[in-house]
């Protein structure tokens, strides 16, 4: 056995909690992931995937597994709703499913959705495959942590051919509970020809130093269509580490819109594998940061099939002393001939003390491939600023107008108009209208 690395307070405080107990197969998986985490520890910045996100300060903090009052915390349900999102809703408070805040009555035909805690209690055998993953890479430390401790989350299945019109709303609430840590695990599957509209919302209500992890596995069957919006508004002191894996079958089409607004330390690994021929993936994302926020997005797309397409448009805005990180890696695997992959990442620095690191990567091992990628980091266009000011628009307003316009490319394709308008408003609020660089 190798000698174990010295455990930082973060792991020391969390890993002493007893593992949840349930089905023997799951207990074993939890144990293995925990052991892997104990063996590898947390990644440092020498690890390529964590190069720009140092965990030093987070690692020095202590957390408590779960929140004993999660079931009874008083939450205003109206604060959770989003415009244009009025379908089934699952609400989790500090990592625990809250039936009282959720809306799961009269589900449309073909939609099965329930909290993971309930599915596990029923010993749902079909989850065994999805939850049996052993994460071994040190870069996956938080996924290991999640795999060891997550007890709740969403299990969602859409039957073959079923079209779910109303968006399904996941609401993950961080309610003020100092030093709480929680983990959510989601398993989502769309049958052949199924269609689903999904909104994932992370919302901080009340500020507290918390750590949340979330791991989602999404599988699209043949010709399945998924339209998903991920809106992140965690509390200012919250740390949030997410991993979203998407797998596309033949002629499937997934469209993802990701909006990162909140949190102190936020990490999102978005991994997509295009497994089926003629499948298509569109990703759109934006972060708008201020204060000392640090948000790191790791997008990776793997084309593993013939004539598949992916288009990714990401924007980033960093103000004050914030830091944004974007890594977009596209791999066109051997045999994935006829693939068409494009990635555009443009960033805007609004302050000399802000920082944005962007790294597009493209690896092509197939023939007849169309691929384009580009990344830029710049400042607001002085000519445009002057143009607006010369018409009477004050400098601060001109800056916020141009910044919002810069982000708009990400939403032009969002079909839910009410939600799109809402997100545009949130972006405007997040952007500074009150200061000059």
């Amino acid at each position, binding site marked *: 056995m190798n000698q174990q690395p010295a455990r930082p307070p973060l792991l020391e405080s969390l890993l002493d909690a007893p593992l949840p107990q349930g089905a023997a197969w799951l207990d074993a998986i939890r144990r293995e992931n925990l052991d892997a985490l104990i063996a590898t520890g947390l990644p440092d910045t020498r690890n390529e995937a964590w190069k720009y996100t140092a965990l030093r300060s987070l690692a020095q903090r202590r957390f408590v597994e779960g929140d004993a009052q999660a079931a009874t915390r008083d939450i205003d349900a109206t604060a959770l709703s989003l415009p244009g999102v009025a379908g089934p809703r699952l609400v989790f408070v500090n990592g625990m499913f809250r039936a009282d805040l959720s809306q799961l009555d009269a589900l449309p035909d073909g939609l099965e959705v329930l909290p993971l805690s309930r599915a596990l209690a029923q010993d749902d055998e079909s989850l065994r495959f999805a939850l049996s993953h052993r994460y071994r890479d040190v870069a996956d430390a938080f996924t290991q942590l999640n795999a060891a401790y997550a007890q709740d989350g969403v299990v969602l299945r859409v039957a073959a051919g079923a079209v779910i019109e109303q968006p399904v709303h996941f609401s993950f609430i961080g309610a003020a509970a100092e030093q709480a840590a929680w983990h959510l695990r989601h398993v989502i599957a769309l049958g052949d020809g199924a269609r689903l509209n999904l909104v994932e919302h992370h919302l901080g209500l009340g500020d507290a130093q918390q750590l949340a992890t979330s791991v989602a596995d999404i599988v699209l069957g043949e010709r399945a269509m998924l339209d998903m919006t991920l809106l992140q508004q965690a509390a200012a002191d919250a740390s949030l580490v997410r991993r979203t894996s998407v797998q596309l079958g033949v002629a499937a089409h997934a469209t993802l819109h990701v909006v990162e607004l909140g949190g102190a330390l936020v990490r999102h690994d978005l991994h997509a594998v295009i497994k089926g021929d003629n499948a298509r993936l569109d990703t759109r994302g934006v972060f708008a940061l201020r204060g000392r926020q640090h948000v790191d997005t790791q997008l990776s797309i793997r084309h593993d099939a013939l004539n598949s397409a992916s288009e990714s448009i990401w924007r980033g805005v960093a103000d004050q002393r914030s830091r944004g990180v974007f890594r977009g890696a596209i791999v066109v695997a051997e045999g994935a001939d006829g693939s068409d992959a494009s990635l555009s990442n443009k960033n805007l620095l609004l302050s000399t003390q802000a920082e944005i690191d962007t790294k597009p990567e493209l690896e092509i091992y197939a023939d007849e491939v169309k691929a384009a990628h580009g990344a830029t980091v710049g400042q607001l266009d002085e000519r445009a600023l002057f143009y607006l000011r*010369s018409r*009477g628009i004050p400098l601060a307003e001109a800056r916020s107008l141009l910044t919002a316009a810069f982000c708009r490319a990400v939403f032009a394709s969002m079909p839910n108009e009410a939600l799109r308008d809402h997100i545009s408003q949130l972006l405007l609020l997040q952007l500074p209208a009150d200061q000059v660089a």
Partner: protein
Amino acid sequence: MLKIENLHARVEGKDILKGLSLTVNPGEVHAIMGPNGAGKSTLGNVLSGRDGYEVTQGSVTFEGRDLLALDPEDRAAAGVFLAFQYPVEIPGVNNTYFLRAALNAQRKQRGEAELDSMQFLKLVREKLKVMQISDELLHRAVNEGFSGGEKKRNEIFQMAVLEPKLAILDETDSGLDIDALKQVSQGVNALRSPDRAFLMITHYQRLLDYVQPDFVHVLADGRIIESGDKSLALKLEEHGYAWIAEREPAGAQA
């Protein structure tokens, strides 16, 4: 209304304006002509407050206020409008939204009530009729993908909506075909009024066929070296700027 006295300005360490003086009264239309490099566009930029232009000497007052001390947005609210030689494309900002934000920012600055979207739309409809502009332009992003003529017409349309006291047209005629030139000129003429003054900066005489100036000034090497009525423009057209250059030593001594 506008009083420019002995204005000296430099750009990137180079002296461009070297003692320019000019007085403009309400209702007057002044044309400023001159060869390339004379300082025509610098004058427009200095008056509208663009960064990078350093005034080293002289003064500009607008209705008694020190214009050079105001930020660009405050100059606009005070009633100064610059029609750009090269209007800027602003992707993602809707033309109507932009114009309403501009008008309301100016009104707010002047202590006037802001217009709601209904009131604004009514105003825009009136101005569209005068300018003969299709409302399709309104739904697009500011100047994005506009042809050269559309951009210039959009400048004049903005001027019509913002109703400035002093409009500075910086080579608004450049790059226009004859039809576009006529349309732009009609727009300008429709806005002429006893309360509004125009400063038309141009290289060519042809704009002055359509918008008849009260005064024509010749700008050369950073100063006005000749002023006259519109017949001066015709003389320039006939003899070219070389004619002025030959006369310049005499003018400089005067």
